[in-house]
């Protein structure tokens, strides 16, 4: 059993509902469990490469760290300035109490972000884009026009990246300095994008793509028992865990 086999729409719905559920609780335990749970699933029940997991985890940890420090210094009602943090042990009790309260907030925010990232990385590394779009078409009634339009656009990405580099080179050779975001480069790329949209639309229609006629499908994705099981386990853990911890006073 591999996570790649899960129905992409179900996977997506579980993660979206899970994210909303996580947003209304502040238990570090739940957040960490979700993060670790998804990481374990990635490592043991998927074909994701360790290297790609790390490549996505790194920016996630950086963002979590950013949020952590923000929570630590600027949690509501207990703001601390950076200077007063320098030697915590010498500070009066009130400040230390505030610091520990802030630490809790900081951890709550940072771990929640990690829980989101765990789900996001899990989804990203186990879901083929094409299967996702097909599944949205079959399970969520996304119209084929939007489905294939999206796929065509995403498949242009390599061309887009190549062209983007070329435009920047062309500008430099004309003696124009281009910064990381240049409206001029974006303009040229938009010119290309609009031309491309017309050409690709014409090519697709010329090959018989038509939203008025029924189409057949080479393969259709279905919702299977293991999709339901996945949904029950994940959402059960998040919602159930939250409810249990609510019943235990003092839990974090």
């Amino acid at each position, binding site marked *: 059993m591999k996570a790649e086999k899960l129905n992409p729409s179900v996977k997506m719905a579980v993660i979206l509902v899970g994210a909303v559920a996580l947003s209304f609780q502040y238990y570090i335990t739940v957040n960490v469990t979700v993060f670790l749970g998804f990481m374990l699933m990635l490592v043991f029940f998927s074909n994701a490469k360790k290297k790609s997991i790390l490549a996505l985890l790194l920016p996630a940890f950086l963002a979590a760290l950013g949020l952590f420090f923000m929570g630590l210094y600027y949690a509501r009602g207990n703001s601390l300035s950076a200077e007063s943090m320098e030697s915590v042990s010498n500070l009066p009790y009130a400040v230390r109490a505030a610091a520990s309260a802030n630490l809790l907030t900081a951890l709550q925010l940072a771990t929640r972000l990690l829980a989101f990232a765990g789900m996001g990385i899990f989804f990203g590394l186990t879901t083929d884009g*094409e299967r996702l779009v097909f599944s949205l078409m079959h399970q969520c009634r996304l119209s084929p026009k939007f489905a*294939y339009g999206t*796929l*065509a656009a995403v*498949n242009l990405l*390599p*061309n887009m990246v190549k*062209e983007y580099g*070329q*435009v920047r*080179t*062309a*500008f*430099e*050779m*004309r*003696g*124009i300095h281009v910064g990381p975001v240049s409206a*001029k480069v974006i*303009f*040229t790329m938009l*010119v*290309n994008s609009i031309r*491309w949209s*017309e*050409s*690709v*639309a*014409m*090519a*697709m*229609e*010329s*090959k*018989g*793509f*038509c939203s*008025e*006629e*029924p*189409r*057949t*499908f*080479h*393969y259709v994705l279905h919702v299977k028992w293991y999709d339901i099981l996945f949904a029950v386990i994940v959402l059960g853990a998040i919602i159930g865990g939250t409810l249990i911890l609510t019943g235990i006073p003092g839990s974090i």
Partner: protein
Amino acid sequence: MQQNNFQVDGSAALEMEDVIFRFYENGKKNILDHASLTVREGTLTVLMGSSGCGKSTLAAVAAGLYPENGGFLLQGSIRLFGKDLKELNPRTRAEYLSVMFQNPDLQFCMATPEKELYFCMENMAVPPEEMKQRVTDTAARFGLESFLTRPLHTLSGGEKQMVSLACLYVVGSRMIILDEAFANIDGEAAKKIFTLLMKMKEQGSTILAIDHRLDLWLEAADEIVILTDGAKVLERGLNRENLEEAREVFRQEGLFFPGEAGKRYNNVKETEEGGQYGESTTCKEENLPAVSFDAVTIFSEVQKRFGREIPSGKKLVENTSFDIPAGTITALLGSSGSGKTTSFLALMKKHPYTGTIRMFGEDIRKKKPEELYRNAGFVFQNPANQFVTQKVEDEVTCGLRIWNPEWTDEDIQREAERLLTAFGLESKRRLSPYMLSQGQQRRLAVLSALSGGQKLLLLDEPTYGQDDRSTEGIMRELLKKKEADGLTVVMITHDRELAERFADRILVLEDRKIRERGM
């Protein structure tokens, strides 16, 4: 009733009668101006005409892609195999007619040839259980097996066009229009596709080929039709037997008469240079080659690791040495993907290499990029990628200002005026550069690439997306500049005839070596 004017003929695949089509509802210019055309079933018809005469638009209108995707059809009737086009939707239209387009990069929706074939069959509601077998058969027929599951963006232009044809085959259209489908692929690939196309014709397919070169089609064509402005038929009923009679029409419309490549070159020399061609130019006195490669090796890819660039991928050019003398026009030939453009980029310090590259005698490693750009201008395959302003005039003044910071506004204005006039763009000065035709865009790109008085011009595929007349216009301009200012031109092209017509020397990139080829 319009219908009464139709010839009642069951064997017509496409009938267009008195069609008026324009892009702007209230504009004055009709792209198709009372255009009429009939193509008989089972024939190969070749449609020729100068760029901007409306032949591509005609194809798109015939296939119902316009006005669906732009423009206004004001009048006229179009029938596909006897059926009124208005009553067909994209799917039913595709049963009768589909189009193969010029740009191989913009014809696909899916990621691999295999998936694209499935997509096409799904469009035509082929039963799913038949699909797999059909893909296998089609792949064998069109020779796609070796790259069936490779990402489309990694295929060569020729391979992509072959996939395109295979797609039209599985769609099963009774008629196929090829809209300059061979314009950007090399001759070898075009011949392969042509052979398979002819097999489809034998089995009853009707083919309408739009092309600015006749050579490939001449032997097999049942009819050659020449269009003029507004896509009106100027000459029809031509074939290989009576083509000679139309020689004058070809000349007058600026079209390529088959087998005339050599003669053209002489004409240019006589008319433009008055026989002075071949005299030594100012630059040659310095005796330094404009470009010289000394034991240069270039890899296809570069990996960045810890800030250092490590070459990877395959070797495109290996241990190659050659010189390009200053004040000459040199063509660089070679099949697509062989590394011609990459070699140009290496010369501009935009791609790493080993060995030594010199520009006007100086090692480019010791030069700052800005110094190189001051000496050499680059015109890309798609000139629209190098415009930096939104007005033709600004495009020129902007270049002049960058390269000549000491000039006053008046100087710049005067020089811009002179350049625009010299390149025949003065009437377009207030337009957006993107409003220009492909030929004019390239001329503007050349003009702005040389606005700093650059002595070397690198041209990447100057024929891309335009007809012979516009290409020739630019080449004449460059010949003049070569004679007058000693400009050195190096152009990448897959068009052997263009190279033979205009280049003093021809280099060929083959088996990872760049060598001179005898003229």
